[in-house]
């Protein structure tokens, strides 16, 4: 059934023997395969690697947008009673900063890694549903457009060219301005304008994107593993992808329904959260955090996965306690559904509920701690190389630990009564988000970009990225612990002199610029790598997992022949393990490699969300004919899905071995 090959990858680097021609789909239209136009090729691609790269590029863009928003926020707060920007603009900025960073930067960055790596790590040709994957990407883009469209209207409003009429007449806040968790009733139509509608529609679309992507990845990981790739042989990153995808599948419905209820409140006059009609605003908080807390783990588990790949590689040792790391990840995911009310300790839950959620929150610290112990255990007795990815991974462990400790402080509900909604909380979750997630993601970028681009990093700029971002992050956020404990509430656009907050705020602002410089250097480094990196080779880091067994960048079909996995850390065992642990490859069956056809339809269907979302939101702002635009959007989605179903999956065969 299989042959043992000496090289770890059958030589498949050659050019295609003959030019492939696109075929007609069941619709009679030409499929966009083998397009000479790069743009058409990327727009219609179903290749998980290209989709991953696009996720990554767009996410990095939004990371910079969110970072810019943060810089304006920090500049405004540098001095007491500063009036650089108005209260309304400030509120819009912090709302969009949070929304952008969570939904448009970190989640898609994670999705970028999922997309690029998971099929490679499990030895699959692609994800289970390549066209759904393309749909998820473009739906994400549609959601990002809708949620940010308010900036355009706000600019027009500032220039005096637009003002709201209709249901939200007189309310000229077109950019969301109610905080990223949008606590009712401030999201009601008496308090906020069309910005809230953009936010509702945008998040709803992003939810569709996340749900479809998550289901796709669960199916991929469960069904598409190469032979021998048992569950307990999967790389930890793939495991974390699986846990995160399941979290998305079960957590997102809560916010989808909450958003639908909110939309009905605003558009059809229902009373889900409207006090006048008997609605209970507290219900929103429960629904939001039933989604929102798992969301925290949706953000952080992939980071843990990345670090669990990087640390063993650069310690030349297997991950300490693989099974326990995987299991604790799953436990974190499961417990993540049981701690949502710790975001609500100050809402008057009652003694028993407060106590229960307090204890459960402490309990979730245990599996998190277990991961840290295991990472330290991985380093112990290893041979630690300080390569770029490792520096960030080591930084992650340290910073994440600090974020975790302030988390334990929150878990004690009475102590949290002083910390809740103060800068202490800001410090906590930025240590987790930047010190944790961001550093891990950068570590992942340094680790895998050579695989993605096939080019190696130039020089040691990474050190300076690490220096500036780590120093910047600590200078920005460490003083915030004190700001919070000295009584500064979050989300205040300015503050009075004389409360002892001036020095801390100024230091924070300076720190944020240092951090920004670090991120700027990262972008420079990525561009340098992209433009003039030397060829990386298949396995530049002496790495452990399957993705390094194929070429850099991987061919469109990933593996010329399907690998047969003998052990966990397959490539490491292949290189350094005993003879019987070599990776083998399935024999060529002569059919060639079946590739899925590219398609316009997922993109058409998902971009239909743009007119739908914008139409419904602009209708609220009183713009004429927007109802028709929304209906057009709905029609576009239906048409896209229908044509998608009818055109058939198609597919073609590649014969990489022929040219050998």
């Amino acid at each position, binding site marked *: 059934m299989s042959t043992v090959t000496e090289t770890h990858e059958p030589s498949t680097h050659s050019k295609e023997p003959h030019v492939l021609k696109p075929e007609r789909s069941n619709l009679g239209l030409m499929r966009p395969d083998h397009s000479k136009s790069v743009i058409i090729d990327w727009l219609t691609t179903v290749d998980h690697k290209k989709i991953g790269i696009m996720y990554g590029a767009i996410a990095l863009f939004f990371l910079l947008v969110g970072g810019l928003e943060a810089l304006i926020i920090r500049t405004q707060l540098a001095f007491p009673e500063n009036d650089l920007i108005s209260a309304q603009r400030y509120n819009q900025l912090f709302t969009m900063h949070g929304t952008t960073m969570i939904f448009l930067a970190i989640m898609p960055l994670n999705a970028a890694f999922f997309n690029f790596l998971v099929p490679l790590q499990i030895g699959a040709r692609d994800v289970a549903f390549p066209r759904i994957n393309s749909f998820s990407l473009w739906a994400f883009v549609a959601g990002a457009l809708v949620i940010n469209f308010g900036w355009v209207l706000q600019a027009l409003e500032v220039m005096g060219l637009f003002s709201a009429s209709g249901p939200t007449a007189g309310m000229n806040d077109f950019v969301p301005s109610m905080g990223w968790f949008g606590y009712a009733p401030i999201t009601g139509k008496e308090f906020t304008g069309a910005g809230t509608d953009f936010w509702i529609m945008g998040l709803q679309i992003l939810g569709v994107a996340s749900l479809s992507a998550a289901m796709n990845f669960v199916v991929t990981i469960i069904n598409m593993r190469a032979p021998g790739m048992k569950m307990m042989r999967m790389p930890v990153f793939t495991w974390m992808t699986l846990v995160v995808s399941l979290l998305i599948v079960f957590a997102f419905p809560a916010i989808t329904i909450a958003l639908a209820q909110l939309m009905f409140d605003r558009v059809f006059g229902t009373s889900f959260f409207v006090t006048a009609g008997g609605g209970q605003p507290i219900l929103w908080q429960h629904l939001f955090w039933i989604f929102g807390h798992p969301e925290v783990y949706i953000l952080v588990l992939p980071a843990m996965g990345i670090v669990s790949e990087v640390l063993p590689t650069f310690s030349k040792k297997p991950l300490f306690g693989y099974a326990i790391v995987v299991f604790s990840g799953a436990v974190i995911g499961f417990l993540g559904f049981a701690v949502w009310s710790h975001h609500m300790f100050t809402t008057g839950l009652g003694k028993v509920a407060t106590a229960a959620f307090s204890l459960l929150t402490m309990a979730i610290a245990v599996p998190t701690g277990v991961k840290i*112990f295991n990472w330290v255990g991985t380093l112990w007795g290893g041979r630690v190389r300080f390569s770029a990815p490792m520096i960030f991974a080591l930084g992650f462990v340290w910073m994440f630990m600090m974020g975790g400790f302030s988390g334990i402080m929150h878990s004690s509900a009475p102590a949290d009564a002083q910390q809740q909604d103060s800068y202490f909380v800001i410090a906590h979750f930025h240590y987790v988000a930047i010190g944790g997630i961001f550093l891990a993601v950068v570590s992942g970028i340094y680790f895998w970009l050579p695989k993605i681009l096939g080019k190696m990093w130039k020089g040691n700029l990474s050190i300076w990225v690490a220096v500036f971002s780590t120093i910047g992050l600590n200078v920005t956020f460490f003083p915030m612990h004190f700001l919070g404990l000295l009584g500064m509430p979050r989300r205040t656009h300015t503050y009075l002199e004389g409360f002892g907050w001036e020095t801390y705020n100024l230091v924070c602002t300076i720190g944020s610029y240092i951090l920004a410089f670090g991120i700027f250097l990262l972008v420079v480094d990525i561009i340098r790598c992209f433009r003039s990196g030397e060829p990386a080779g298949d396995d530049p880091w002496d790495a452990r997992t399957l993705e390094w067994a194929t070429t850099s960048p991987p061919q469109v079909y990933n593996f010329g022949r399907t690998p047969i996995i003998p052990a966990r850390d397959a490539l490491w065992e292949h290189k350094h393990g005993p003879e019987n642990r070599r990776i083998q490859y399935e024999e060529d069956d002569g059919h060639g490699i079946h590739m899925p056809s590219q398609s316009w339809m997922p993109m058409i269907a998902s971009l239909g969300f743009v007119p739908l979302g914008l139409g419904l939101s602009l209708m609220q702002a009183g713009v004429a004919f927007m109802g028709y635009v929304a209906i057009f959007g709905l029609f576009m989605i239906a048409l896209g899905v229908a044509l998608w179903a009818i055109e058939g999956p198609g597919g073609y065969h590649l014969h990489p071995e022929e040219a050998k």
Partner: protein
Amino acid sequence: MKKITHGFSRLLSLSFALLALVAFGGCDLNTKMSTFDVKGPIAETQLDLFMLTVWVTGFIFLVVGGVYVFAVIKFREKPNDNSPMPSQGHGNPLVEIGLIGASVLLLVIIAVPTLQAIWYTHDTPLNEQSKLGNWYTGDELSEDAEEEVLVIRVIGYQWWWEFEYPQLGINTANEMVIPAGKAVHLELRSVDVIHSFWLPRIAGKVDLIPGRANAMWIQAGDNFERWAEKTGADGSELALQAAYNTYLEEEIHDYYYGQCAEYCGDSHARMLFRATVVGDDEFAEWVKSEAEGHTAPEGKPWDEWYKAYDSNPDSLTGDLNEGAKVFMGRGKCIACHSVEGNPRALGVAGPNLTNVGERLSIAAGWLNHHDEEDVLQADKQYENFVKWIKETDVVKPGNLMWKSNGNGIGELLDPEDPDKIKLLTDEEIHYLALYLQSLK
């Protein structure tokens, strides 16, 4: 490479040292809203709990962080290291179980006092000293009230606070007055969006959620037993009581700062409040003056003043009368504001202005007119009133005093030409400010 890493770690430690300097050396932790400088059993319990978490996590940090740094340094790759592969250990279940057990144990150290504190801070204690009947020296109370602790109904508005004292029949705004050493029960309500009541030196926050009846209790300073237990003071009953009173006067009587802690819209940052903690007698005096309110300018009874105002307003002259006329008339202030004693100033949409001239701040704590010793400064007060009336929308964007369906001070119409907007003139504002200053 190694050199750079070395430089990196040096830079890192330098910056940490700098941070520590900023954190511990450079700044004072006893500030106006510090959660470290606590004055009351609740904030104290919360601080103790916080410090416990700091010590426990600090301990874990030292141990785990120490091992971590040790491992990174000890097991770093050395330049001329030609030894074979490190041992490929996959983990050790015993170590794992031990560490899990240790973490659980450390968490229990936090969990037990947490549970105690949740119970302690949740229910308003009904101790003898706090019962209104046992300390309140003002007018007669209802029998029910005598057996209760003082209740204050805190109502959040965008962006100010109403403090109602239902047992005492008074109502004030933005600056509450509470007795030292007594438990006070707060009923927290909101009329619009969610707000959060936070008085850091006295108690952590609880939210004011529309459609929901929240409650909390606060207490400025310890009650006698707790104080005696803590200080361990000895002596005769009388001497102890005197020492306790000195403690209250010197350490607890003060002007405390609070702020809304839940984002509540445009001017969330400008929704502050104050709590003045006073002795029992002073409290009773304050209640009396709040309940009595104010006479018309120059000590005239209101019915007399209104007779003159209705028949011949020009007969009312002088700064305060001019101001009162704007207040009752063109300024339309009484549509939203109440002033005790004044039979026509009965508005309920805005803050009650009884004794507003005595308050040390206006505009929900944003415009302050007091010096370091919390003594009122009349000049500054005048300036603040003028600024607030003139630039309401600048001081607090989006607030209802400026624009509210045609009733705002920014929407005042010209009496001569009702189609035109005519704001208050500088002269009118001058008189109004003087009149408001006189409300004390």
